[in-house]
Structures are given as C-alpha cells and as structure tokens.
C-alpha cells in the first residue's frame, strides 16, 4: 500500500475550514507561537543563515551517498546488538513492527510522536491485530482520543481549542477515575500525565520515530519537549524506532548542526527540553533501557525520488517551518490537505509517495509566494518542486481541461503580437 491521500475534496474542505470559527481562532496561534518565535530565534543566532547553508550541504551530501551511510548505520546498530529492518513500503513496515511486537508478547505499546507511523497508518493496523497502541505525546494522545489525524507535523492539535481538549478529556477520562471537566491548562496536562504514567509502566513495547539517525554511531536521535520519548524507549523491554531512510546524517557533528536548526526553525526554541540519543540496546552495566533495540527503515517511495527533480525534498528535517509560514496553510489548517504531510513540504512529498494522480490539488494550492523556501532550514526549493509536479500533471494531461485550453490559447495569442494587439 502506498500513502493514503484524500486530497480530492481540497476545495470543499478548504472552504469549510475558512468558515470554521473555532479552527480560525486556533490557527491564530501560528503567527505568534511559531512565525515570530522563529524570527526571534534566528535573530539571536548571528550564524543562523550560514548554518542553513551548511545543513543544506550536509543533507545533500548524505542523500548523494545514502546507500553508504545506510550501510554504515546498519553495521553500527548491529555491532551494538541492535537490529535494522528494511521496509520497502508501508505494508512491510507494519508487518515488521507487528512481528517484533508479537515476539515480545506485546499487548500494549506506547508510542512517542512519529509522522512515519502516521504515514504507514500503524495504529489501526496494530489494533486490528489485537495490540493497543498508546500515543504519549500530549498532542498525539488528544487526537488519538478524538480519532483524528494530526493537522501539523510538529503540532498535531494546532487545529483544536483548549475547550475542545477539555471536552475530550472530560469524555474519556472518567474511566480512569477523573470526573471533573478541567479548564486550566496545567491541570489538564497533569491529569493526562498521570494517566499516561500508568500506561508507560505497563507497556510491553515502545515505538518512537527519529528526527535523525547518526551513521557513525548507529544512534537514533529524538527531540521532544515532554520527555515522553525517553519513557517510551526506556521503560519497555523492547524499543522499536520507525523512521524514513532520509533521516540519516553522517556524524555527530552533523547531527549537532541539525539540532541547532531544528527547534529554532520549528518552535523558535534554542533547544528542546529533551534530546535523546538511543544507541543500541542497554549494556550489561546500564540500569535502565530496552534490552531489545530495533530500527525499521522505511523507503515507501523515497528512493524513487533520488536522481529526480524531487531529490532535494529528501533533505527535509520535518521542522514544519514551511507550514507555519505558508499563507494557505495558515488560513485553512492541515486537515484540508487530506494528507499526513500538509502545507508546502506535503505538497511536494505527498505526490512523491502517493502519486500525483491522487494528490493533484496539493502542489497547485500555492500562490508561489516563496516564503516556505525562505524559511526552510535546509533550503529546499519547495515552489520549484511544486511547479515540477504541475509540469508532470500537464504532461500526463491531468491539468483540468478548461485550464489547459486557456493556457494554450494564451500561448497562441502571446506568440502572435498582431492578435495580442487586437485584444
């Protein structure tokens, strides 16, 4: 199975989003919470622009030599006593995860935030097979309760108001002994945390994503502000990292560079509250940690992008800056896109993973204002690649007939000044 996309109804969903007062209010957070915060963070670091150049070059180099670095990474993980699993597509990835869970006799698994597991729709699959997945990132936990999909790649509940979250907790928490509808943010967090603590302790397997994979050490690196990745990875006996092959960087120094850019670009933080390096299973002398360490590396269309005009998309570090600075995303939110990857990065990545025939609206729903490229920490030319998708559509006759005819007519008129003058 490729990536599931429902972008056909983009126009209708966008219209509904524009008329949704609660959503519109929630989206206002983007300007102060993300856009201004990023600008301030960038201004505080004089070297920021030069670091972006270096990050672009590091990722470009890595992608150009991806096979070598993947081999190095695998050798290091294996040497440490861990195991690397290669998944060509979502089906393979899910089957691998299920097999590891079954091997561990798992009934419940905790998960820290992972867009790749959203991409492969791991949760419904585990449920179908009798394993209960529990999202432990607060935002992911909320949308899991609400049976929704994330609307942003780093802020999954950016579309929700505090009141909606209060209602959600009030509906789902009585079974854990919490009957009061809380409305103070810190109280709500405390309640969710006390429930999640129990789930952490009881989980049989922990699944995390990875922000970066370090080839020279075999480490999977995860950043969070809640510390939930550490509990997810360390408390159960089995830790599975599920991530994409493009997350690799060659060295710890390279990783450090990325770690300086990621939070600044994403939330405007100089550093996240937690940065965790998971390097193999626990050693004999370690007091905690999982004794079984697995890394599932997903391709799912990524390697097909190499050598094409979309290769540069593989540099993406999933910071979400392009979403936050996109005037289309900022006005309609993520759900209208009908893809786990919304906004500019999703407009380029989704057709690469799912096919342009299924994701046609995404690269078209852009005014090419270029702000996404202007803030991308690894300088991905997003508008150019959206244009390339439009070219592919045009070549495959997927462009709507009216527009096609209009463009042809205009080209004919422009080629003939006498006709043009007569207009």
């Amino acid at each position: 199975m490729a990536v599931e996309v429902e972008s056909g109804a983009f126009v209708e969903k966008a219209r509904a989003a524009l008329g949704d007062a609660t959503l519109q209010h929630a989206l206002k957070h983007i300007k102060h919470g993300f856009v201004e915060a990023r600008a301030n963070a960038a201004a505080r670091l004089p070297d920021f622009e030069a670091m972006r150049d270096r990050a672009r070059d590091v990722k470009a180099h890595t992608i150009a030599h991806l096979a070598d670095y993947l081999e190095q990474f695998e050798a290091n993980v294996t040497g440490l006593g861990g195991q690397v699993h290669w998944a060509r597509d979502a089906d393979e990835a899910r089957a691998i995860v299920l097999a590891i869970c079954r091997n561990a006799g798992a009934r419940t698994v905790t998960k820290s935030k992972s867009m790749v597991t959203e991409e492969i729709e791991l949760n419904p699959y585990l449920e179908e097979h009798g394993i209960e997945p529990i999202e432990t990132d607060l935002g992911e936990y909320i949308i899991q309760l609400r049976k929704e999909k994330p609307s942003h790649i780093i802020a999954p509940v950016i579309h929700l108001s505090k009141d909606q979250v209060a209602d959600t907790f009030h509906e789902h928490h009585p079974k854990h002994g919490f009957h009061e509808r809380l409305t103070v943010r810190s109280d709500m967090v405390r309640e969710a945390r006390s429930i999640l603590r129990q789930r952490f302790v009881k989980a049989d397997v922990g699944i995390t994503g990875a922000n970066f994979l370090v080839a020279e050490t075999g480490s999977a690196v995860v950043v969070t502000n809640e510390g939930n990745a550490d509990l997810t990875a360390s408390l159960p006996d089995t830790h599975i990292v599920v991530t994409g092959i493009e997350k690799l960087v060659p060295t710890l120094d390279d990783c450090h560079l990325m770690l300086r850019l990621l939070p600044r670009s994403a939330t405007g933080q100089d550093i996240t509250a937690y940065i965790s390096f998971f390097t193999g299973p626990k050693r004999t002398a370690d007091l905690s940690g999982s004794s079984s360490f697995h890394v599932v590396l997903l391709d799912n269309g990524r390697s097909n992008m190499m050598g094409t005009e979309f290769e540069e998309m593989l540099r993406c570090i999933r910071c979400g800056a392009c979403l936050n600075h996109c005037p289309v995303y900022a006005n309609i939110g993520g759900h209208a896109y009908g893809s786990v990857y919304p906004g500019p990065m999703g407009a380029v990545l989704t057709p690469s993973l799912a096919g342009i025939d299924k994701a046609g609206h995404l690269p078209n729903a852009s005014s090419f204002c270029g702000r996404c490229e202007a803030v991308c920490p690894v300088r991905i030319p997003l508008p150019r690649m959206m244009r390339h998708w439009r070219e592919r559509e045009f070549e495959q006759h997927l462009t709507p007939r009216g527009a096609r005819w209009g463009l042809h007519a205009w080209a004919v008129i422009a080629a003939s000044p006498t006709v043009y003058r007569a207009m």
Partner: protein
Amino acid sequence: MQTKPQAALFVTCLVDLMRPQVGFASAALIEAAGFEVVAPRWQTCCGQPNYNSGDRRAARSMAERTISVLEPYSHVVVPSGSCAGMIKVHYPSLFDEADALFGKARALADRTEELTVFLARHGYTPSVPLQATRVAYHDSCSGLRELGIHDQPRSLLRKLPGLKLLELSEPEVCCGFGGTFCVKYPDVSGRMVENKTADIAATGADTVAMGDVGCLLNIEGKLRREGRDIRACHVAELLAGTLEKSSER
C-alpha cells in the same frame, strides 16, 4: 551632443491589458532618469502563467520570443517584480546549458531590472506634486523574495516631500493573487486578500502602493468591494505624479 542611452520598457501583459497608465508612468520615469525609452512593439507576455501552470513547453517558446524581442537593448526595465523575476530568475532555467538560448537568457537576465531597482540605482529623484500623504507599501512576493526588492521602492517614495511611508504589520505575507492561484482557489485567495486589506487599513493609509499590477488588481478590487476609502496604485504612478489620472478612469 551626447545621445541618451536607450532603455527598453518591457511593459508586461498585465500592465498593457489592465492598467496601461502604469506603462506610461514607467516610461516617463525612465526618461526622467536620463534614458531614451523604447517600448519594443512586438513584446507580449513573458510566459509566467504557462510556466507556473506546468506548461513548460509554451513557457519556453514565450521566453524565446521575449528574448529575441529584447535582444537589441542593453537595458531592459520591467514595472513588475514578478515578470522581472520570471526573466531574471526563471528564464535561464528553461533552457539546457548547452543550448545557445541559455546564454542569451542569462545575458537578458543580467540586462534586465525591475523598475524601482533601476530608478534607485540611477539615483532618480522625483519632483512631482504630492498625490498621497499616508502611503502604505505592499511588497510583492516575487519582488521581495526572488529579487530582494525591499529598500528601493521605499527610498524612492521617501524622496517625495510630505509623504509618510507606513509599514504593514505582516509585509512578508502574500496578498493571495498568485496568478492563476486566485482563479483556481478563490476562497483561500479571498481570505488572503481580506487579511491584507485589513492590515493595510490598520496602518491608517490613504493609499497603498506596490510594484506589481497583479497584487494591485487583487488588492484594489478587494478594497473597493469592502467600500474602503483607500486607493491602490503602482509605485510608478505615485513617483511619476500621474495617480490622479489613473484614479479618474
């Protein structure tokens, strides 16, 4: 007697078809900057609508035409950040490096300047009657991000004595025009321009000036539909002092 250097005005199809006054104002400004203005007769559209819609082949042939029409001129001036960006940034990418047209595209890109960049570089100082006192400036996305146009139009406007230049709260945000974008996604585009006109109104401006007729048509239309008493104009119209004529249409 020394002859004036020649500069070709690439009018752009939007100016030509929707707001020819901007073309005349631009010509007057280029002339006032010390150049003889030529508007090559056979120019049409730079090809951007086709280019951005994925019709690369048509865009390339339109670029070929434009390159050949503008071949004889050592200076090409464009009263649009977006069309100047098309020529300067995108034309070379339409041709293989081995193609002779690539070199010609590169050469044209080097000879081409957006109007305010051209005027600022030649130290142009307007001496025209003031037609607006509180002026907000709207940056077009292509001008700002493809060509780095930011200070030039502002410094030119500041040379008009008595003019107070106002800044939007979100000058980097798109107005929602986006060429065919506003036709394909009118709802989203409509919200974007609504946000923009609200931002403009909040500055207390009586006039909003900009360097692109695409944004201008979009913003002007919205201001009018909202019944706001704010004029929208091309920066050339203010600098050339021809705004009243434009408003009397």
